[in-house]
């Protein structure tokens, strides 16, 4: 009997280090190797920067959910080309915000040659997802500069977090073109016309963009590709672009020139 107990104890100690011990699907317990991935990738982006890169290209993907095979396929294709600088994933990296879904995603993006920035989506806020995102990727609201362009990553999820409004105050101050940037480009998961926003929020979103002279805003969530100006009759000329989900095996190439931004759909 004693031998049996020691045997079981040894097995217990051995396996407690590996993944087979799972305490809860909702757990907020991120490995040290997986924390602050956005910050890690931002450092890689800053290292890329040189003064004569303008114009440059970035890749947009969105709504990867749990389509890991499609994501893997696209990563293989992206690793083949070298003419872009980094990738932005505009939200919804999980289906139910479970820890394992986050882990699978973070394992896959490690195979990318280029840095990737991950925006938070509404599905990522389900159950304890927001807390896992905070641990794994850091603060969901942040800005970074690259080649005299300012990129704004904005968390506009309100339902998962039981908020009434997104942090518009932060959004407004961040969008301010304070250093003569060529472009200020916001990325957020949910487009303003979505049902999650009240009419006031929708109008505020558009007003803030227009007030800061923003021309382009990029979103995911709708799962289809559209470039339009829905508020042209009401206020401003902001061009809203939503991109397709990864299941359609497409990615989008954004060419940022000195005074123009072009978007191109790439089918695999």
């Amino acid at each position, binding site marked *: 009997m004693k031998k049996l107990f020691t045997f079981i104890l040894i097995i217990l100690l051995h396996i407690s280090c590996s993944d087979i011990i799972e305490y809860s699907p*909702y757990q907020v317990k991120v490995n040290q190797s997986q924390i602050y991935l956005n910050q890690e990738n931002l450092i890689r982006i800053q290292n890329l920067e040189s003064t004569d890169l303008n114009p440059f290209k970035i890749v947009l993907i969105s709504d990867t959910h749990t389509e*890991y095979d499609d994501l893997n396929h696209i990563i293989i294709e992206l690793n083949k080309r070298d003419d872009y600088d980094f990738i932005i994933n505009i939200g919804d990296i999980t289906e139910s915000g479970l820890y394992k879904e986050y882990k*699978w995603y973070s394992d*896959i993006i490690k195979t990318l040659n280029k840095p990737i920035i991950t925006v938070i989506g509404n599905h990522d806020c389900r*159950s304890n997802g927001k807390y896992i995102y905070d641990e794994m990727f850091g603060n969901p609201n942040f800005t970074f500069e690259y080649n005299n362009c300012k990129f704004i990553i904005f968390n506009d999820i309100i339902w998962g977090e039981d908020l009434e409004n997104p942090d518009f105050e932060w959004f407004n101050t961040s969008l301010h073109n304070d250093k003569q940037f060529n472009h200020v480009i916001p990325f957020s998961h949910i487009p303003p016309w979505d049902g999650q926003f009240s009419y006031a929020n929708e109008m505020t979103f558009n007003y803030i963009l227009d007030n800061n002279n923003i021309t382009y805003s990029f979103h995911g969530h709708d799962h289809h590709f559209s470039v339009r100006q829905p508020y042209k009759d009401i206020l401003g000329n902001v061009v809203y672009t939503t991109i397709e989900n990864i299941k359609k095996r497409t990615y989008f190439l954004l060419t940022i020139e000195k005074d123009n931004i072009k978007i191109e759909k790439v089918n695999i």
Partner: protein
Amino acid sequence: MRLFKIIICLCICLLINKQSYSQNKVIASYLSKSDTLLINSEKIVIPRRVIIPDHNRLQFAGAIGCISAGFGYNIGKRYEITFMLGLENDFFGGSKESIVTTSIKNTFNLFHPFKINNNLSFIPTAGISINWGFTNNTFNSLPSHYPDSYYFQNKIHAAPFIGGKIRYDLNIKNCYKRAIELYFELGSLDAYIIECVRNDYVGINDIMNLAIGISIYFE
């Protein structure tokens, strides 16, 4: 921390309940399976109380918390139902947000016990648990501000498992702790199984989790 104390108290209560009764022979026979009493040479059949559980369990891991405790009933020779309460928080398991899980575990003994020696035997098991997870943003029906069927519910999960147990029979007189079992279960979760079927990337080893526990049988 308060929740943890409650769980520990519950666990201790469950472990001592039958032992304390067994001091009294009348009550002891009242609780045992032979429910007949001989009083003044008359046979009195007393229905067995079902409220007092047949077994208690303490479990480590298994997707229902770092530690979980519970009680259950043996229905027939093959089927056992166990009600478990599990906890994971910063101290137990290291999750930043605390998670309380209740689980109804349905275990089936697959075959007759394989005898190892007089007291020891091995029994393969299989079954399915239904787990309720209580933490932030879990719900059965969506909060009112969502449109209908915007999300699928994320509170209840079905968790099938296979496993085995090593049973050690205690043949001690006047004691109702009749057996101690060490068990292990390799389980998964419905959400993971769906991903495993849909994706080549997610392998079987990615979705499995191991639970180890001890159960004490009174019978």
